């Protein structure tokens, strides 16, 4: 009963306080106009008439993430990996896996069969989200987060041991993660590396030609729009995010029994 009373007070507060705030609300609420900077980004995201300033990607969000404010994203990726490395360092432990023989692992056969279909679809949807990130909503972060649910679902439905037997181990995922990070680093400086031997001025994280630097990655390959570096950034970020999360899930779902056995072994 006390909870219902508190809830009614909260709801009345919302309705009443918004009546008070409505006078001041005009200053803080969205209006019919957006900021000058946003218009600049929207105008230059895909603009074939301004070839020296555009990104050639119809998706304004991805072009902000990986081109206009690319340095921010690189540093945010660094923060993300520090958090992942912290988790790995805390959850690390040399554990001998003892697979229980007697009991049936996981959920029922119906759910397992459906998951065999849906896990493939999850990976396909994630790959399409990531690789079309420069054309439709999506990108490396979205695709990676989507694909990371598939290993967790398999762990929950089959078991922790099933994923290990299928060859998805921590070492493989560490390799994929390193591949992704190295790829991001290489793509960030690739235009600079191409321009250096030719003696042309170029920037780090450069995508399309700039007014004072005439070099850039091609926007179209075989008539398909790939928006220069954006496609490669999305691909590598997809691998990195997916592998990073999968390592953490493999560590966090180690059965508590294994840890208990290990501690008992140390005591004796």
């Amino acid at each position, binding site marked *: 009963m006390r909870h219902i009373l508190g809830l009614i007070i909260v709801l009345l507060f919302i309705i009443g306080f918004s009546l008070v705030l409505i006078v001041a609300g005009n200053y803080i609420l969205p209006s019919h106009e957006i900021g000058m900077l946003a218009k600049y980004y929207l105008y230059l995201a895909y603009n074939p008439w301004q070839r020296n300033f555009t990104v050639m990607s119809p998706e304004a969000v991805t072009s902000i993430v990986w081109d206009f404010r690319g340095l921010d994203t690189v540093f945010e990726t660094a923060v993300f990996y520090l958090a992942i490395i912290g988790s790995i360092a805390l959850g690390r432990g040399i554990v001998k896996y003892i697979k*229980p023989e007697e009991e049936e*692992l996981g*959920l029922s056969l119906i*759910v397992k069969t459906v998951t065999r279909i*849906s896990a493939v*679809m*999850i990976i396909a*949807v994630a790959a399409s*989200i990531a690789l079309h990130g420069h054309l*439709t*909503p*999506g990108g490396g972060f979205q695709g990676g987060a*989507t694909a990371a*649910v598939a290993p*967790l*679902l398999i*762990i*929950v*439905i089959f*078991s*922790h*041991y099933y994923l290990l037997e299928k060859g998805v181990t921590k070492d493989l995922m560490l390799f994929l993660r390193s591949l992704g990070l190295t790829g991001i680093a290489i793509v960030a400086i690739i235009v600079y590396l191409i321009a250096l031997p030719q003696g042309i001025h170029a920037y780090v994280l450069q995508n399309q030609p700039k007014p004072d630097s005439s070099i850039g990655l091609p926007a179209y390959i075989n008539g398909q729009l790939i928006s220069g570096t954006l496609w490669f950034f999305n691909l590598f970020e997809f691998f990195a995010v997916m592998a990073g999360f999968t390592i953490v899930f493999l560590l*966090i*779902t*180690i*059965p*508590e*029994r294994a840890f208990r056995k290990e501690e008992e072994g140390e005591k004796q």
Partner: protein
Amino acid sequence: MDFSIVQTFIIYILPVYVVAFVLYVIRALKGPTISDQVLAIDAMSYDLAAFLVILSIFFREPILIGTAIVLALWIYALDIYIAKYLEKKEVGE
């Protein structure tokens, strides 16, 4: 056919969907056991996926449909987690 007819029709059936969502959320909030709550969230979210597709037709924005695919895929996950928790008590194995 003129597209505004479709838009007007969608506007007229919107209240029915919204009333259904409100009833679903009420059951999800008050359900006596965890299973009732999860069942209500489940039904609500599959309907929400259909609703998002209908709204994307109303807004004439075809690209908004990708969100519905992702939503339809993930609600299943919540069922599985709760089921596993209720059955085995340790989610890992």
